[in-house]
Structure formats: C-alpha cells, structure tokens
C-alpha cells in the first residue's frame, strides 16, 4: 500500500473516530446542550451539576472508551504477531484473567497499596505481566495455534478457579467490591485519572511503534527474523512489556472487556491486507476505539429498555467472530 493511500486511510479513520466520539458523547439518559458542553470544557465549574455530568460522566466515558478500545486492539495485534497466531488476544490468552486474579487478591485480601485506584492499577499490571511471561513460556512448547489457544483458556479457567476460592473465603464487602470491578465498565474513570490512563497507554503505544519494523519481520517466523538480524529475546521482552502495559492498565481501569483484543486486529488485517505494522498499529488504535465507542453508544441508547453490560455486549459480537476464524483455520 502506498504512503498516500495509507495517509488517506488514516484521515478517513480519524474522521470516523471523531464522528463516533460525537455520537457517543451525545448518548445518555440526560439531555446536555451544546452551550453546557462548551462551558464544561472551557469554563468548568464543579458546583454546576450539568458541568459535572458532562465532564465527569460523558466526556470521561468517551475518552475512556477511546483509550480502552485502542489499547486492547493494539495489545491484541502485538500478541497475534508475537505468537504468530490470529486467535491470540489479551482475553483469549488469559492476560485479562491474570490481571483479574491479582486485582482479586488485592481487593479480597483487604490489603491497601497506595490509593485505592493506584493499587488496582499496580495489581492489574503485575497480573498482566506475569500472565504474559507464562504464555510466552508456553508458546515455546506449544507450536500449534489451537493448542496455545486451549492453553490460554485453561490458564483463564485456572485463575478463575483461584478467584472462586478467594470469593468463598472473602468477606461480603470485599466480594462485592471485586464483583463490581469484574463486571467491566467505562464509567468509573474520573477525569483526573484519565491523565494516568492516557499517559500509561501512550507508553505502550510508543513501545509498539518503536517495534514496528521488527514486527514486520517477526511475521515471517522466528528463524527468518533471526537470520535478518532481529534480536528475538529483546524484541519479545519489549512487546511483552507493551502488551502488559496496554492490557493491564485497561483491565485495571475498566475491568475485563472481552474479545476486543482478538476481533479488532483480525478485522484490521482483513480490511487492509497488509503486514506493514506501522499502518496496522495506527489502524488498530483507530478501529479499536471505534469498535468500543459504537458498542458503548448502543448500550447507552438501549439502556432504558434493555440494560446490557459492556463485557456481555463485546462478547456477543466477539465470540461469533472467534468461531468464524476457527472455522476458516480448520478448513
């Protein structure tokens, strides 16, 4: 794909993203006028309820959706290239489960580390990182794509079993706190926390971009990549850190969100039919954000009639997509 075409696609993607963000910010059960929106952004007054509602609930939710969708899609793409497996993704390969386990350990043990939210972010990052290392170790033994997928699911089941035991042993309030977190939502990130969220995601994105040319070679397989001079161990570690940061921080702030990290990278590859990772990174960031924004806007609009949790909605769309890919692979 030529550079002009790539730039064209990026511009179209960004325009679509802007449109979806506008649609999302207007979705909700309370009416917000354009004047209130403008004032809430440029002349924010915390004593005015409409300003608070717009800034803390609408705008922060929209920005959270963009950050969550982008980071999950990018982490999924990195994993798919790293494992050379289109079925890889932070949810399928148990990265979310690992993050959940560590958050569960933190919340249900009653240990308080730093601020409440900071402790959860730290725990989720450690959990995501440990899971990544485990899956990388396993991928050395399991070359078959389906086997690795099954191993990821087993790992997810294993961590779920530990979480179930923790739930049995924990007090009612700790259990409730964990249940509330594990339901997954975009609405609990405050405007101040968005800076931490965006900052951490930016680190992950920069790491991914820095690995762009190595990722292009890695799709050929480890051996050819090594022959072309790629330091495999170093590349794997950096990708691993990027995945842990992106998936871990999103899981920490939003709870587990299923299938975005698996479905969006496949969709992007399907549309652009390219292995140029700089373009894929950019488009995954845009399409991931678009996907979550649209899902969440639909949820918000249907809420008065049919309240659906985000995690359930993304699973409803993502699970058939996994099935489709599996069927294509098996055939």
């Amino acid at each position, binding site marked *: 794909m030529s550079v002009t075409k790539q730039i064209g696609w990026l511009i179209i993607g960004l325009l679509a993203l802007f449109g979806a963000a506008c649609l999302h910010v207007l979705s*909700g*059960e*309370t009416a917000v006028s354009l004047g209130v929106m403008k004032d809430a952004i440029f002349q924010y007054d915390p004593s005015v*309820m409409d300003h*608070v*509602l717009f800034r*803390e*609930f*609408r705008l922060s939710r929209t920005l959270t959706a963009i950050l969550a969708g982008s980071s999950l899609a990018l982490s999924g793409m990195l994993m798919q290239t790293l494992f050379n497996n289109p079925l890889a993704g932070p949810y399928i390969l148990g990265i979310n489960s690992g993050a959940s386990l560590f958050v569960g350990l933190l*919340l249900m043990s009653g240990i308080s580390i730093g601020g*409440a*939210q900071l402790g959860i972010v730290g725990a989720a990052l450690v959990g995501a990182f440990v899971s990544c290392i485990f899956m990388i170790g396993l991928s050395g033994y399991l070359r078959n794509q389906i086997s690795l997928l099954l191993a990821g699911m087993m790992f997810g089941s294993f961590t779920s079993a530990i979480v179930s035991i923790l739930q*049995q042993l924990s007090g*009612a*309030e700790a259990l*409730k*706190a964990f*249940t*509330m*977190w594990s*339901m*997954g*939502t*975009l*609405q*609990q990130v*405050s405007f101040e*926390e968005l800076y931490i969220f965006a900052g951490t995601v930016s680190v992950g994105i920069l790491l991914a971009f820095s690995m762009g040319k190595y990722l292009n070679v890695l799709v050929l397989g480890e051996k050819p990549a090594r022959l072309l001079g790629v330091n495999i161990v170093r590349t794997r570690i950096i990708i691993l850190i990027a995945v842990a940061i992106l998936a871990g921080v999103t899981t920490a702030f939003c*709870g587990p969100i299923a299938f975005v990290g698996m479905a969006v990278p496949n969709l992007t590859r399907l549309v652009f039919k390219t292995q140029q990772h700089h373009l894929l990174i950019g488009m995954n960031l845009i399409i991931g954000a678009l996907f979550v924004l649209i899902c969440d806007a639909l*949820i*918000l609009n249907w*809420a008065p009639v049919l*309240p659906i*949790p*985000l*995690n359930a909605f993304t699973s409803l769309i993502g699970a058939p997509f996994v099935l489709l890919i599996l069927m294509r692979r098996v055939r």
Partner: protein
Amino acid sequence: MKFWFFSFLWLFLLSACSEEQKLTPIDNKDNICRYSKWLRIAEFPTYTQIDILNPSTNELLQTIKIGDGGIIPGATLATFSSTHIGMLAELNSLEKVVAVQDIQYVYNEILRNSFNAGRITSFGNEGSPDAERIVKSGAKVIIHSAYAGPFPNEKKLNEIGITCISNFDWSETHPLGKAEWLLLFGYLTGKKDLAKEKFKAIETAYLATFKNSTKGNERIISGNVYGDFWDTPAGESYHAQLIADAGGSYVYAQTKGIGSLSLALEKVVKDAENATIWLNPGFSTKESLIRANPKAKFIKAFTTGKIYCYTHDANKFWEMNAVQPHLILEDYRRIFTQQDLENLYFYREVL
C-alpha cells in the same frame, strides 16, 4: 348379577371419595391472609389448605394440605433462604431444621451451634444439592425461594415423600405481606396460634410506627452501581413502600414495577441532586464504598448528606428483615427524622 352390582357400587364410592380429596383453590372469603399477594391460607375442620401463587403469572402454582393425610405438622425442614430461618426462630422452632443452604450466611446462634455439633447439614454454596444429600439430611419438607423455578428434582423428591414448597416472600410488595409468610411456618411447625399471635403483634407495631411517621423533607436514594447500571428499588416495590411508610420521599417513588430499576449512573447523579440520605449502598465504610464506586463522590448524599446501611451485620438483616418489618420501619423513621440514631436496630451510619 350381584357381583356386577357390588363392583359398580365399589367403583362409584371410590370415585366419590377421590373427588372429595381433590382440593379446590381457596376462595377469597376463606383466605385468612390479608396482606400477602402470593400466599393464601384456609382452615377447614380436619386440615389446612395453603395455596401459593406464582408472582410471574399471577396464577395458582402449588396447593399444600397440612394435616389429614397431607404434611404432618412439625415435620423436619430444609430451608434455602435466610428469611426462613428468621421466621422459624420467631416461632422457637429451629429444632425442626435439619438442613440449611449455607451455614456461612446463618446469623442465628442456635442454628450455628447445631451445625457445629453436627446436628444439621449445610449444603454449601451450591444452588441445587443432589437429591441423595437431601434425603440423607432427613428433611421431609424443603422450603425454597424458587428464583429459578421448581426445586431441582422436585418430582423425584415428591415421590419419596419430600414436599418442596416455593416461598415467594421476596416478591411481596408490602412489608406486612412479606411478614405474613410467618403463618406458613406456623402451620408447618404445628404452631399456628403462636404464628397468628406473633403476626398480629408485628402488624400492630408496624401500623403504630406508620401512624407516628410524618412526611418529612428528606429526599432518599437507595442502592448502588453494578457495572454500567445503578440498581435501585422500583416505585411499587417492598422497599419503596417501607420508605413511604416511614415518611421518606423516595426519588423513584413514581416509577412502575415491583422489582428493581437499572439506571445509568449519570441519571441517578442528576435525579439525586437534592437527595440528602442514601440507603443501602452495600458497604459499611465510605472508604470501601468509594473504592468500589469511585464516582460515588459526585452524589450529594455522599459528600454533604448521610449514608446508612445494614452491612456491618448483613446476616442479621437478611435473616430478620422479613419477620421484623416494624423494626426496619422504625429504623427508617429515626433516620429520616435524625432522632434517636444511637439505638437503630439494623442500620448504622456509613462513615
């Protein structure tokens, strides 16, 4: 000829007898329940008939005969809800309990001691224990909440003489309707007179507190956010009725429905702009509340109002709330008037 005549006579008498055994639905004039929507009880000379209606369809779900060949009063019981234990405790009939769903959620000291002494079975955190374990527990009657329909293996259990009874006290819209299920336990344990006496006392106390309650200015919100939605009682629910009877002005009092509402958090924040009291957020400290729901800080009642919950002793609340609605009403009355707060029965301020 003689043979045929006596054969027909025998068949006629047999069919006449079985007709007599068939129970017809209880008529309104025979029903002794006055508040419950889903429980009907009628006393006949030799037996008591209990009809249970299905809250989903409003139709008769189950007819139970107590005495005269039906359930023997005082039969052993397995209970699958904390509220059943509270009712049995009120009737001093805990010795009839041979099995509970999960001892972890039992507040009653007597029952806990019985469990420790190995006299009762706890099925653990499993929704549907297998029939074998139930038979082994020695229970003759199973009382369950029927959230998910009939009790698992209900037909099999009936065949071996174990009766499963659906208890819809949780679906009642009036607090006294919920408490009226005490009568069911009275008939089952053979203590119908005590049950009637106790219910009369509950009713008198509830109505007296209701009479003493004056409509105040306090705006009330209830519930908390779970995932994307805030769960709060609907305007025609049991909880909304309690708030109204205690003189509170519930934010969602005008909504329809007897269950709960799922609302967007931003809507609740806006609707609760003038609410000064927040009930039942599910946490006993503000620290744990804000940890689970960071945006609670935007709810006025969190920053400048008062929050009350029962979670410091949740098992006690869940066990006793159905049978002591007058005490909950009294707690609410005190909270809404901000008087005598140091002597609340179930509630405590969340600080």
